[in-house]
């Protein structure tokens, strides 16, 4: 008797496996879109001699989670200093945001900020500070290295 050589391919199990694989991939994939917060660091001596510095906000993040804000080159004789006390959870973000909004409404030309965290300041807090400043339309942000 001649042996049958032809055979049929069963497609249904293949389709089953494919659908299970697609479901598995969909469930296990981590869909995180990465974003970035951009800063432009000053290197060397960028300032031209005699050039007028733009108004700048200096924010110091202390280890006790308080934030010291000082305004420089704002056209007044004295620099303005503010202190945002820490809350129980850490930095008082609501009070800081309110303070920044107030300052921005008083000084619309304020577009530059320097963040000066202390060595033990939390990196997440530094990023959140940058985020708050960017949300307040202060776009030119720099980070100050330690010991400066």
């Amino acid at each position, binding site marked *: 008797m001649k042996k049958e050589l*032809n*055979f*049929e*391919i*069963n*497609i*249904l199990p293949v*389709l089953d496996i*494919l659908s299970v694989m*697609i479901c598995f*991939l*969909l469930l296990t994939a981590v*869909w*995180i*879109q*990465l*974003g*970035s*917060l*951009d*800063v*432009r*660091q*000053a*290197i*060397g001596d960028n300032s031209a001699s005699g050039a007028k510095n733009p108004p700048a906000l200096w924010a110091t*993040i202390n280890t006790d989670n308080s934030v010291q804000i000082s305004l420089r080159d704002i056209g007044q004789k004295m620099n303005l200093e503010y202190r945002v006390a820490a809350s129980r959870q850490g930095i008082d973000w609501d009070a800081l945001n309110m303070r920044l909004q107030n300052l921005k409404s008083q000084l619309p030309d304020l577009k530059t900020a320097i963040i000066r*965290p*202390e*060595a*033990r*300041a*939390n*990196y*997440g807090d*530094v*990023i*959140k500070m*940058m*985020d708050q400043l*960017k*949300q307040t339309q202060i776009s030119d942000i720099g*980070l100050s*290295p*330690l010991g400066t």
Partner: protein
Amino acid sequence: MKQSALNQTQRFSPITQTQILRNGGESPKAGAKKDLAPILSLTSLIDAFSIIVIYLLIGTQSGGMETDIPSRINLPTAEASSIIEEKTSIVRIEKGRYFIDEQQVSASQLGRKLYELKKASGKEDLPLLVQGDREMNYADLDPILKAGAEAGIQKLKFAVVPNK
């Protein structure tokens, strides 16, 4: 008479069998069978699969840069973030250890390595993507700032998870 494999498959395929509804519950042997409606169409299934595959391909290509982030790093979140459009070199900080494009570099060598990177790229305005855990101290980031200034890198991009 010889029959081709295609004919055999067409005759005995389970898909063909399931595509046929028989009239009035008649058994296949009871008489002439009548096709009522196709139940399972292979073409529509392939269509659906192609749509899913195309959807997944488009969904994963957001136009931004694709990066691998180790699961042990929890990136900080930010609302005012921007999309990373161009491919940039990555500096990762993991518990006081530094990696430039997946290559471990000691803190003292950072400045020299970044300078070489900038020189090799030929770009005057080379950006650097910094990935760090949100729980680390600022002191861990400080060597990168100093090394970047040493190498003449002005543009730093801090990797965040957009929180919108």
